[in-house]
């Protein structure tokens, strides 16, 4: 009897608690909470945001632009007095303006290339995964082959052909950077394909194309966004790499890679020409990397 009473009491107290509805938490809210707990990711989001704001808004507040020389200040070291906070280069161009402009270009290029790689990778992976069978095998074999070959070679090859057309070129980088995306998307598609709603769509007579692009692709958004965040820093590096070698962005335009290449040449006498662009590049890469990792840890179902 006593036990029963105790049990009842417990039950009642439990009921009382339940009377006030506990707000439910969706998987998405869970993931966001996990992301916010990840300090490195939060700091990175703030840093990246600041960097983007600087890069976009900064040039309006600087009295110099990225291509016109200041005839009074050639090779000026960084100082607050003459207004060249980051110093000037051999041609008297303000390094702060150039760094901000270079950051803009690097980000823009990374965005274009990432969009291209996402479009190709998602379509390719989803088609291979959904159609399956021989088609899948052939398509993925092609990806394996491309994986084995260093795509930088193809990029340089395309560069030799396309020459100075910068945006076409970076679209070409994107067109070669989709391999991992295709693999991830294919894997996801294989599991989504088994779901009931796909079966329902097929039973109601929907065509393959419509199923792929209306029912499968929208459900891939999570992993695609995560992987795309990790693709951006990769492309920033590739762009800098190519610009460094002299294939990428050309004068008077500039990018972080071009600035670093120019800075490295005069490192001993004009060290600021390397340090400032390098710092921007490192902050940009680190924050993108931490955000990508954070997103993956927060949203990826495997670690739950």
């Amino acid at each position: 009897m006593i036990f029963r009473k105790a049990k009842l009491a417990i039950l009642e107290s439990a009921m009382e608690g339940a009377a006030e509805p506990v707000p439910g938490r969706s998987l998405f809210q869970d993931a966001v909470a996990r992301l916010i707990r990840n300090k490195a990711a939060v700091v990175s989001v703030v840093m990246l945001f600041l960097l983007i704001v600087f890069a976009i808004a900064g040039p309006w507040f600087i009295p110099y632009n990225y291509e016109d020389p200041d005839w009074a200040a050639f090779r000026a070291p960084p100082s607050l007095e003459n207004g060249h906070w980051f110093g000037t280069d051999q041609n008297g161009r303000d390094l702060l303006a150039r760094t901000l402009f270079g950051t803009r270009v690097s980000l823009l290029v990374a965005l274009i290339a990432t969009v291209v790689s996402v479009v190709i990778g998602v379509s390719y992976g989803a088609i291979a995964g959904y159609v399956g069978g021989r088609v899948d095998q052939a398509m993925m074999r092609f990806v394996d082959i491309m994986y084995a070959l260093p795509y930088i070679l193809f990029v340089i090859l395309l560069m030799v052909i396309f020459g100075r057309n910068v945006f076409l070129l970076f679209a070409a980088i994107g067109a070669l950077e989709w391999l991992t995306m295709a693999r991830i998307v294919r894997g996801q598609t294989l599991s989504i394909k088994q779901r009931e709603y796909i079966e329902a769509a097929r039973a109601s007579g929907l065509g393959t194309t419509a199923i792929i692009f209306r029912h499968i692709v929208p459900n891939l958004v999570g992993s695609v966004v995560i992987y795309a965040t990790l693709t951006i820093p990769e492309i920033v590096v590739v762009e800098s790499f190519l610009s460094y070698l002299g294939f990428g962005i050309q004068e008077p335009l500039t990018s972080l890679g071009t600035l670093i290449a120019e800075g490295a040449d005069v490192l001993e006498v004009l060290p600021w020409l390397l340090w400032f662009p390098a710092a921007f590049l490192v902050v940009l890469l680190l924050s993108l990397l931490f955000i990508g990792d954070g997103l993956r840890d927060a949203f990826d179902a495997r670690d739950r």
Partner: protein
Amino acid sequence: MFNYAFRRLLSTIPVLWIAITACFFVLRLAPGGPFDGERPLPEAIKQNLAAHYNLDKSLFEQYIIYLGNLLQGDLGPSFINQDFTVAEQLLVGLPYTLIIGGMAFFLSIVLGITAGILGSVYRNGIPDYLIGTVILIGLVLPNFLVAPILQLFFGLKLEWLPVGGWGGGALSHIVLPVVVLALPHIARISRLTRGAMIEVMHSNFIRTARSKGLGGGSIVWRHALKPTLTPVVSYLGPAASYLLTGSLVVETIFGLPGIGRYFINAALNRDYGMVLGTVVFYMILIVVLNLIVDILYAWLDPRVRSR
């Protein structure tokens, strides 16, 4: 085992064929011919040049001739350095690239595995964090940024090492390029090793070994190391191709006379013949290295062979 190696060897043929074909035709998309200069050549010379380089034949015929020459080891002519064929130029540069690349390869394996084991043994301890930080630097800093910084520090400030040049192959000239080339791979390999080692250390056979009373060192070296290394070996194939990409930059920065420099110069000078030849040569090199790594992998892990 032999069977697997043979099948794997056969499977490289279509890969190479597709890659070579793609490169050949892509380069033909390029506007202008190799001899279109600022001053137009006399018609007769033009025709002779075209005949000499088979440019007067149809594209398909040229392609067949190219494949045929390739099978005989002829990578074609260089259009800028006309006194040398592509193969001759590559042969001059190859030893330098192989020495630097090979040393970086071994350095990254040795240091990467050591760092990975240390990181997993002292997991979440001070060595782990130290190694983790260095690794992050290796992963994030691109080599074209690391190289000038090291040049400034060791070459100009401390004056310990020369900033560039081959220097007759003296060790002091090789140290910096090899370190710069190896750094990202040390980082990746040690990450792989650390992860795999932690996973292996949780498996049953390690628990058995421990319950038999074996000491930590003997467990790590005699039992855990071999299964840990399989993911590392599978990384070595891609690593070869990353090393090659890295060598493009490293050779340019340190002024080394390897094939990376030839390639970059050819691409900047629009020497189509040289670019095509070098790319095809790189492809063959990488496919062969991948083949070796795959066979090595199958030898280490019998499960792969039966697939």
